[in-house]
């Protein structure tokens, strides 16, 4: 079953074609990779899917629902959430508060319930606290519970951002360069973690990455972008063997003139 469908999606910023007529389908339950050189339009596609930008042409369907004209918070309610390339945590709140805030969607009490502290508030709030604790356990952040997010080591900030995204119980998780700045050892652990959360939460994962080991290791299907256009699509080995991809990454073979 196709969870996410991009049909001839185009995004124009003035005269610049950031995304040019890109189409691909993401199967439910898969881990899907999006790669390409800098400025290829990968993050723009994430911004289009999450409703931060509007598509110029084409359409994006999530479970058959068109998300083109939705506000970002409505897209999140549908079950799409993301992490950011340049980490965007609630920096002055603690690890626990960061996750707890994102759990808000799983409680439905209103302003008046909160002011009156009635039974409904207490019950639902208890549920939220338990959920936040559980997520912290899964992501291995319990021992940093009360540390201000901005003071966490870099790798942990990345993990916290994933934890915060998972708190929404999403169906589709978009990871924007989750391994940026990580050493090979941390990258390997992240790969295992991505697979684990996919199985545990019944997720579909769409990941942008530059670390080829990560992409080749976990992604079942990969789309390669260059200058906003789709260059290739296929499994890891298919993409690796594609001459156009090699050209985009390493440049054309030059004729050396002495």
């Amino acid at each position: 079953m196709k969870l996410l469908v991009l049909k001839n999606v185009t995004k124009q910023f003035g005269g610049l074609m950031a995304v040019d007529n890109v189409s691909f389908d993401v199967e439910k339950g898969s881990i899907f990779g999006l790669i390409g050189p800098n400025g290829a339009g990968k993050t723009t596609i994430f911004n289009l899917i999450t409703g931060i930008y509007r598509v110029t042409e084409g359409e994006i369907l999530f479970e058959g629902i068109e998300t083109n004209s939705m506000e970002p918070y409505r897209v999140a309610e549908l079950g799409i959430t993301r992490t950011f390339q340049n980490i965007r945590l609630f920096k002055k709140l603690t690890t626990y508060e960061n996750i707890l805030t994102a759990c808000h969607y799983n409680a439905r009490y209103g302003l008046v319930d909160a002011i009156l502290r009635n039974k409904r508030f207490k019950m639902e709030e208890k549920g939220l606290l338990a959920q936040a604790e559980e997520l912290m356990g899964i992501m291995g952040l319990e021992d940093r519970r009360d540390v201000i997010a901005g003071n966490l080591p870099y790798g942990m900030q990345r993990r916290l951002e994933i934890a915060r995204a998972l708190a929404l119980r999403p169906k589709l998780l978009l990871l924007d360069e989750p391994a940026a700045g990580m050493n090979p050892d941390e990258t390997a652990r992240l790969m295992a973690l991505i697979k684990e959360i996919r199985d545990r939460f019944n997720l579909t994962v769409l990941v942008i990455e530059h670390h080829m080991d990560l992409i080749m290791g976990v992604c079942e299907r990969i789309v390669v972008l260059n200058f906003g256009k789709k260059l290739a699509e296929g499994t890891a080995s298919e993409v690796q063997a594609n001459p156009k991809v090699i050209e985009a990454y390493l440049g054309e073979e030059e004729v050396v003139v002495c």
Partner: protein
Amino acid sequence: MDWFYIKGILILSGINLMAVLGLSLLTGFTGLFSFGHAGFMAIGGYVTAVGTMKLGLPFVPSLLMGAAGAALASFFIGKITLNLKGDYFCIATLGFGEAIRLVLDNVQYFGGARGWPGIPVTTDLTTVVIIDIIGVIILANLINSRHGRNFKAIREEELASQTIGINVFRYKMTALMISAAYAGVAGGMLGHLLGFLQPKMFQFVKSTELTITVIFGGLGSISGSVIGALVLTSLPEILRTFAIWRLVVYGAAVVFIMISRPQGLMGGYEITFGNIKKLLSRFAYGKKPAAGGDKQ
């Protein structure tokens, strides 16, 4: 100093506190700066006076009417200005505050610029204290809920808030309306303390004073706002001995505190039983706070 004088200062602090509490939600917790809250105070003050004088309602229902009036005005202002980012919203509220004052200057029904005398003097210390306590409880309950956490999330990182499903516009609107309602109650109490309302009382200086108080107490702290309102309202009175240099000393005191404690008096902390216990045990065992674990 006699009790009558002290009581007067306490009532004034209590009234300012109410407006500051509302502004604390908007500025301290949601991260929106406003320089037009005197405008909401004015609306609250005049609507409350209409309630007691023209409609003959008792004081408390009139206050609620004033709060509703201010909230309603903020709803329309919010609709047009809340999509503006950061500084622009601030400028828009500044314009709004002044506009309200000038409108009131020219509406003869409320006495125009000469003011509106003869309002019954019903605000006393007990009423102010009770209303303040209710105000603090409502705000504290709100902050310690999922809604309160959403306000803080918006203050910290607006884009990320949207991607975790927070309707940013709606929450900003809620914060603005609640803060306007608080300012409205403060305005209503002020009118019924002085027995007189004049547009000049709600000048730009008043809005600035409220914002200064919130920052002085510490952004994102209810306890800070309470202490800030009490200190900054009584400070000019305590400084009476300096006679004509009084306000200069007042300014210098504010500048000194902001330099020595830029995060404000409370700096985001709250005074609660739990926190006091923690602080005492830290002193008792001489334990240093865990590195990076301290809330700054």
